[in-house]
């Protein structure tokens, strides 16, 4: 539905800006999907008077006009036949911006034109493009059209939830807003005169299906004149994106927008037998509808018929055979209520989706039919003329009843957690149109308005209370303060899972330690004291362990002594160290690897674990923890073989290390093969690591290509240096550089090695030519030769 800001203002007092109103609608529960500003173009258009018209010397169809725009006389070349001197017209000066073009000074067949005289179509006011727009004689010269027509408006396209059909009319929206904003409602006053002739001597109603037609009213207005609607009416409908047709149809649509209740007008003289029968259609009966489509009906469809034939599909669409046209003299105004399910079934089956059908499907109130009919009668008499016959015809088989709802004040507090006094509840409910009928010290009883079918239970009223009170005004009770350190909890789990899924077995050792082990392993606790146990069970358990390495070495020794060749174990547990802050209980994750990379497999030979296995593992571990880039430095820890180790650095802080255990140390634990360990302080990792922000990147439209590059290079240069040099040559083109081979030995001089890299290259947006690639590689090779003295293989 489209709600016009200006139109809504007819029914409610407020001085909010359109932007503020949008906010208010949202918090009333009316979702605004789109906002359109009207009149922006019309503001630029001025009312001007043509004071002189001359024929164009070089073109038959063009005229040269002199127009007075209130401040100046301008020369405008115009192609319309009706640009006669003396007329008041819509003048678009130079600089006027239309959605598709801007008016500039132009030469038309040799004559300069300063602006344009506009047609109604060009201004978006109607489809009329026969000539330029003509304004009435009293229009003020110089005034802009938006101001003249009062056409500045904001239109909200809103979504009305299915439980609130009352909001399908502007008065319903106004009612809700007035309750919410505590402002006055300005419902239209309805009054009109009826003539002496009785309606029932001109028309009969026969409701043959009172279960589906809940109420049917009809009025007759005679001697009307069908013509174009007045400006104000057209403007209102246009703002709501409703087509204007003629004054009669437009008024029924106006009332639909105002009340939400659909009406229909028949040409009285086309109603055969002057009789209206509401009945089920006969199978195979046909109706040519107002949309020029013919529908074949069946007995489930409810029709409005005259003595001979169907003249409308009840609540959905009228028939062509009874429609109001320019010759119509007398009309029947139908205001009725039909069962929502009947309307739904028929409109689904026949695929006819009209505003009327939409509203009826959501359930209208029978009581509203009379209000809508009265309002239509008043507006028709005022704007179309004619005379209204006396006494409305009203077939109303079962009178609708108002829902009676009791609300306990205590219950309100129980649900909302705020105490709302009974007086306040009554005030809210009255503002929404409910009627207080009974009051005790514990509860209030209300009658709900007919058009609020959604209000039937106590809880429905509580919902209304909180809506008016404001969802966000409910004070918070107690925010949950998390006790659990979820981040750490799941990080520990994820790390364990990661290691297990990389072939590690988890071990668990007691937390006791022995200073002799620390020494034996040359662990680096030089200037630190240990956390000593005053009454140890055994002297070999005299301290709380400062590292997990001793226990893992012993676990390895135990297993090797029991003939287990491959040992891949880890422990994630607390270590205890003294610092200036006192005792620190940090979690460490420490792993040990000896033997084969993988289990025996008949198809492939497996290799022995090596330094790079451990490096990959450590990087993966930091990746699953989502910590950004780590850097490596040579470690001075004496447990490692010099040159086969690294410290793990996160944001300049050491969080751990890895490397190959010095064989002299390993030997003492019966370890004869190469053994590797890694050790990470989880607490430090969380302290110094910064969690990466992951953001989606567009998937490249053009595929990347891969090319290999092999060369011989002195050992003094690292793969890291070479890689970053290559990446740096063109970061927008070179996406990745991966080493895939290293070779030393036969054919390569001492002090050199051969390296092979795979480069991923692409712009992501367009394909590269061979020439592009060759140029790039020439550049890369040149750079590598210069910096690293490489030699191509």
């Amino acid at each position, binding site marked *: 539905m489209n709600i016009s800001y200006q139109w809504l203002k007819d029914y409610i007092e407020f001085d909010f800006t359109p932007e503020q109103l949008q906010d208010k609608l949202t918090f009333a529960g009316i979702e605004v999907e789109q906002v359109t500003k009207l009149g922006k173009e019309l503001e630029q258009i001025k009312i001007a008077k043509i004071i002189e018209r001359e024929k164009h010397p070089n073109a038959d169809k063009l005229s040269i006009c002199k127009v007075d725009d209130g401040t100046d006389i301008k020369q405008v070349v115009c192609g319309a036949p009706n640009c006669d001197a003396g007329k008041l017209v819509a003048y678009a000066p130079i600089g006027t911006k239309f959605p598709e073009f801007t008016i500039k000074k132009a030469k038309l067949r040799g004559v300069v034109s300063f602006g344009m005289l506009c047609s109604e179509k060009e201004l978006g006011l109607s489809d009329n493009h026969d000539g330029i727009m003509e304004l009435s004689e009293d229009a003020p010269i110089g005034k802009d059209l938006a101001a003249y027509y009062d056409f500045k408006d904001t239109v909200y396209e809103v979504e009305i939830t299915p439980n609130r059909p009352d909001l399908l009319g502007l008065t319903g929206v106004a009612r809700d807003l007035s309750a919410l904003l505590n402002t006055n409602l300005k419902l239209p006053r309805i009054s009109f005169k009826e003539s002496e002739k009785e309606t029932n001597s001109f028309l009969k109603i026969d409701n043959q299906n009172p279960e589906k037609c809940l109420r049917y009213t009809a009025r007759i207005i005679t001697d009307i004149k069908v013509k174009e609607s007045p400006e104000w009416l057209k403007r209102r409908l246009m703002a709501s994106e409703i087509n204007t047709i003629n004054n009669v149809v437009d008024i029924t649509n106006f009332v639909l927008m105002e009340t939400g209740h659909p009406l229909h007008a028949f040409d009285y003289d086309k109603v055969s037998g002057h009789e209206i029968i509401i009945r089920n259609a006969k199978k195979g009966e046909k109706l040519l509808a107002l949309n020029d489509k013919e529908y074949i009906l069946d007995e489930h469809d409810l029709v409005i018929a005259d003595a001979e034939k169907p003249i409308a599909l009840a609540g959905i669409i009228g028939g062509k055979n009874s429609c109001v046209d320019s010759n119509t003299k007398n009309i029947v105004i139908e205001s009725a209520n039909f069962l929502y399910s009947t309307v739904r079934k028929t409109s689904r089956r026949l695929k006819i989706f009209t505003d009327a059908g939409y509203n009826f499907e959501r359930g209208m109130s029978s009581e509203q039919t009379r209000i809508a009919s009265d309002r239509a009668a008043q507006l028709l008499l005022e704007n179309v003329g004619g005379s209204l016959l006396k006494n409305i015809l009203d077939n109303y088989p079962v009178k609708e009843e108002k829902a009676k709802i009791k609300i306990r004040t205590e219950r309100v507090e129980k649900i909302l957690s705020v105490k709302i006094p009974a007086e306040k509840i009554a005030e809210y409910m009255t503002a929404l149109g409910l009627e207080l009928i009974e009051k005790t010290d514990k509860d209030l009883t209300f009658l709900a308005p007919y058009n609020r079918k959604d209000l039937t239970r106590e809880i429905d009223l509580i919902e209304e209370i909180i809506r008016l009170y404001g969802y966000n005004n409910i004070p918070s009770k107690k925010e949950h303060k998390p006790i659990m350190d979820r981040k750490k909890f799941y990080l520990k789990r994820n790390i364990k899972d990661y290691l297990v899924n990389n072939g590690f077995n988890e071990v668990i050792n007691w937390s006791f330690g022995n200073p002799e082990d620390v020494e034996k392993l040359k662990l680096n606790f030089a200037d630190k004291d240990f956390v000593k146990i005053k009454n140890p069970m055994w002297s070999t358990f005299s301290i709380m362990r400062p590292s997990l390495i001793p226990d893992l070495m012993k676990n390895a020794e*135990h297993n090797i002594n029991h003939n287990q060749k491959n040992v891949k*174990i880890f422990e994630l547990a607390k270590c205890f160290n003294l610092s200036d802050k006192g005792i620190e209980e940090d979690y460490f994750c420490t792993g040990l690897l000896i033997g084969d990379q993988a289990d025996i497999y008949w198809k492939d030979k497996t290799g022995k674990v090596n330094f790079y296995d451990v490096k990959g593992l450590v990087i993966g571990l930091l990746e699953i923890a989502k910590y950004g880039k780590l850097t490596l430095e040579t470690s001075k820890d004496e447990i490692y073989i010099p040159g086969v180790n690294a410290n793990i650095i996160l944001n300049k802080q050491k969080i751990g290390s890895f490397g190959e255990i010095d064989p002299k140390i390993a030997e003492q634990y019966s370890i004869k093969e190469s053994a590797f360990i890694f050790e990470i302080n989880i607490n430090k990792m969380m302290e110094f690591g910064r969690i990466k922000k992951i953001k989606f990147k567009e998937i490249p439209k053009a595929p990347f290509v891969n090319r290999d590059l092999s060369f011989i290079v002195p050992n003094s240069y690292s793969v890291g240096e070479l890689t970053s040099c290559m990446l740096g040559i063109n970061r927008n083109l070179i996406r990745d550089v991966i080493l895939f081979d290293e070779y030393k030995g036969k054919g390569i001089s001492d002090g050199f090695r051969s390296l092979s890299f795979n480069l991923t290259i692409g712009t992501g947006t367009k394909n590269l030519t061979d020439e592009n690639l060759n140029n790039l590689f020439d550049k890369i090779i040149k750079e590598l030769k210069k910096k690293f003295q490489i030699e191509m293989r």
Partner: protein
Amino acid sequence: MKKRLDEIVEEAITALNTFEDHHDLMNLKSRFVGKKSELMGFMKKLGSLPKEERPIFGQTINNAKNKILDKFNEIEEKLKNLEYEKKIASNKVDFSMPGRPPLRGNLHPLTQIWREIEDIFISMGFEVAEGFDIEDEFHNFDALNTPKDHPSRNLADTFYIGNDRLLRTQTSTVQIRVMENFEPPIKIISPGRCYRNDKPDASHSPAFHQVEALVVGEGVTFADLRDTLNGFVVKMFGSKIRSRFRPHFFPFTEPSAEIDIACVNCGGKGCNVCKHSGWLEMGGAGMVDPNVLDNLGIDSEKYTGFAFGLGIDRITMLKYNIPDIRLLFENDLRFLKQFK
């Protein structure tokens, strides 16, 4: 000539029926319908025939050619199918041969049960809280209502670090710290390592693992305690395992109870595991003593609470039928790899 054509067709079909392989087939094709074939020779001679006879003869030659080609296509199709079947047959696997072993170790059995316990309680709305292994006497004893002269404070029972620090003997210390720092409602479990100066044997270990639960809030009752514990036992051991409460004494709770569950080994009939009683001791429980709450600044008139403690090692041993607690800390791969 018509006769000769029929002969050629006959010859070709016979030859095609006795082909040997694909190469053979291609040779036959060029021999019978190739550019230099006799059939094509006839085609070339067409021009020398009288005009009105040409269409008829052309038609006849074409028919012969098509007959041969049809046969050829049929044979080629057959050959393709044969080759396909051969390939399928040779690709047949012996699925009893080992698949590539994935790189997969496993979690320590204690960790597996630990996680299961945590997840059961998390699903019941508990948070998991952690504390220090090295505690002070206040949090380990005083705040828990333990009298100054209580035997558990002895050096023979508790490991001390210096004079005023000790290794926690139960994770109730975490509950005290949570109550010090957070207001009710509180709903936590605190799993963790505890220490007691016990000489290791089949059922004792100087370091062991406990999970304790604490719930403090308005209207928390003994029924909530029993429902929570029963809920846990059923999720952990299965719906058939009953549990019972026996009156007992703990300084921290009042009323206090010991929790038994029906023997998971014999189902309550009596066996070695349950020492023929049909019941297994699972831990202690009770309503938090009002004194404990008041001492921590929690209004014991407004709030009530319950607590219980269970042994993680014990549950692990029961679940996996592990007879000796020391096996858990020996870290023998032949033991650890059983829990995959």
